C-alpha cells in the first residue's frame, strides 16, 4: 500500500464560510508531514474532519484503504487515527496513568486491568512522565500535559497521529525535548501529520510540508521548496523569510 490517508476533494463549510475547500492530499505510511498555513486557514478544521468531529460537507476521506468519511470519533480512534488537541484535554480528576490506560483500553484494545496499566506505564516512561504516574492530571504543568497528550495518543496504538500545535506554549528547551519524542514516535513507524506555527519544528521534522490558505492547498513540497515559495512567504511566513529561506531559518522564531 502506498497511501495511508487519502483525502479527495474534502470540503467543510460553516454557513457561508468554506473553512476547508476541495482538499486533495495523500499521505504515505511512515511519512512525517507538516501542515502549515495562516491563522484561520482551516488546519484544525481539516483535522476535525479526518477524525470525525466534523462531517465533511463534501469529499471523501480514505484511511488504510477504507472510506472513513462520516465515522464517529471513537470509531476513527479504534481504526488507528489518533489526535492531540490544540488545547490539551486530559481527564483532570484521574491520575496520569489512568489517563493513558484509558487510551490503551478503548482505542488500543488492551484488556482492562493490569495489562492496561502496564502498557500505560510503558508509554509514560517513554515520554518521561513515569514519576508522575500517580499524580492527578490536573496538577501537571503545561509542558507535562503536552507530553501526557503524546503518551495518550501513543497508547491508542495509532497508525496515523495528528498533532495540532503540540509545541505551542513550550519554550525552546522544552520544544527540543518534544521534538525528540516525536522523532521517537516516527521511528516506531507511526505516520504523523503535524500542524505547527513553529517553523523550526516543521522544518526539522517533516519530510514534506503542505500549505493551506483560505481552506485550499496552495503548496506542497520539501521544506526547502516551501520556504522559498513566494506564495507561502506572502501568505504565511512573512518578511523574515522574504530575503531567502536558508538564511532566515537560523533566526526563525516560533
Amino acid at each position, binding site marked *: 500500500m502506498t497511501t495511508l490517508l487519502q483525502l479527495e476533494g474534502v470540503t467543510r463549510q460553516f454557513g457561508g464560510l468554506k473553512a476547508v475547500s476541495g482538499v486533495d492530499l495523500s499521505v504515505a505510511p511512515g511519512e512525517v508531514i507538516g501542515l502549515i498555513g495562516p*491563522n484561520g486557514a482551516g488546519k484544525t478544521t481539516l483535522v476535525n474532519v479526518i477524525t470525525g468531529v466534523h462531517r465533511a460537507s463534501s469529499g471523501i476521506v480514505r484511511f488504510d484503504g477504507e472510506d472513513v468519511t462520516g465515522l464517529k470519533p471513537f470509531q476513527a480512534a479504534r481504526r488507528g487515527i489518533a489526535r492531540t488537541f*490544540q488545547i490539551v484535554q486530559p481527564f483532570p480528576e484521574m491520575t496520569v496513568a489512568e489517563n493513558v490506560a484509558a487510551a490503551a483500553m478503548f482505542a488500543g484494545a488492551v484488556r482492562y486491568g493490569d495489562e492496561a496499566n502496564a502498557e500505560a506505564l510503558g508509554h509514560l516512561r517513554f515520554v518521561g512522565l513515569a514519576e508522575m504516574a500517580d499524580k492527578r492530571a490536573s496538577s501537571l504543568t503545561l509542558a*507535562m500535559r503536552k507530553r501526557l497528550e503524546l503518551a495518550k495518543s501513543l497508547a491508542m496504538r495509532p497508525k496515523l497521529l495528528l498533532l495540532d*500545535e503540540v509545541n*505551542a506554549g513550550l519554550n525552546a*528547551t522544552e520544544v527540543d525535548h518534544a521534538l525528540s519524542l516525536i522523532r521517537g514516535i516516527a521511528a516506531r513507524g507511526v505516520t504523523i501529520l503535524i500542524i505547527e*506555527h513553529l517553523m523550526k519544528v516543521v522544518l526539522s521534522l517533516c519530510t514534506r510540508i503542505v500549505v493551506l490558505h483560505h481552506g485550499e492547498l496552495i503548496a506542497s513540497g520539501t521544506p526547502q521548496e516551501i520556504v522559498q515559495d513566494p506564495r507561502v512567504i506572502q501568505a504565511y511566513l512573512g518578511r523574515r523569510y522574504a530575503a531567502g529561506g536558508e538564511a532566515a531559518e537560523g533566526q526563525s522564531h516560533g
Partner: protein
Amino acid sequence: MAEPLLSIKGVHAGYGDVPVLWGVDLAIERGEIACLVGSNGAGKTTLMRTISGLVRATAGSIAFDGAELAAAEPDAVLAAGIAHVPEGRRLFSAMSIRDNLLMGAYLRRDGAAAVEADLKKMYAMFPILAQRQEQDAGTLSGGEQQMCAIARGLMGAPKMLLIDELSLGLAPAVVDQLCDALRALNREGLTLLVVEQDVATALEIAKHAFVMDTGRITRSGESAALANDPAIREAYLGSL
C-alpha cells in the same frame, strides 16, 4: 530616573495552600516594553494574575502609578490602568468579535466616539477581525482568537498592558505584524509586559527582560545583555 510605573516587591501568592510565587521583585519603567521569560510552571501566569487581581497576593506590595494594588479586585486594577490579555485567550465565546472588543472598553468613561475610534484602530491592526466583526468569537481559529484577545485588552485604553503568551498559535507573519503594532503603541506611551515562550522574539522587542524560575525572578537586565549571556542561551534559546 523617575519612579517605575509598576513596582512589585516581595510578592507571594498561590492557589489554595500551594504557594507558587516566593517573593517576586520586579520594576517596570514608564513607557518601556518588558518581557518575562521562564520555563513552564515557573509562575509567569500566576504573577500576571496576581497583578491583575485574579489571584490574591498573600504578602508583598504591588505599586502602580502611585497606587497600592496588592489587595485590589480586578476591576480596580483595570480602573487604575492595567489591562491583562490572559493565557488561553478567554474570549466571550458566544459574543461577536465586535461585542468582545466593546467588553474590553467596559470601564471606559471617555465617550462612545473615543471607543469607536479605538475600535477602528484595532480593525486596522487586525483586518481579519474587521471582516468577521459579527462572527461568534468561539468559532474563530486559534490565531484569530489570539488577535481578538489582544485587541480586546487594548480596547480598555490602559496605561499598561500585560500579555500572556504573546505569539502563541500565531503565524510567523502575524507575529511580525503584531510586534510592529506593539512597538507603535509603545511609542505612543503604552507600557508593556509580555510573557513569551519564544525568548528570541521576546528579547528582540523588549528593552528589559526578567527571567523567572520556580516563583522567583532569578535574572533581570537589558535584553541585549541577556541575549548574549551563555547561560540564558543554553537554558532558553534551545539547540536549533
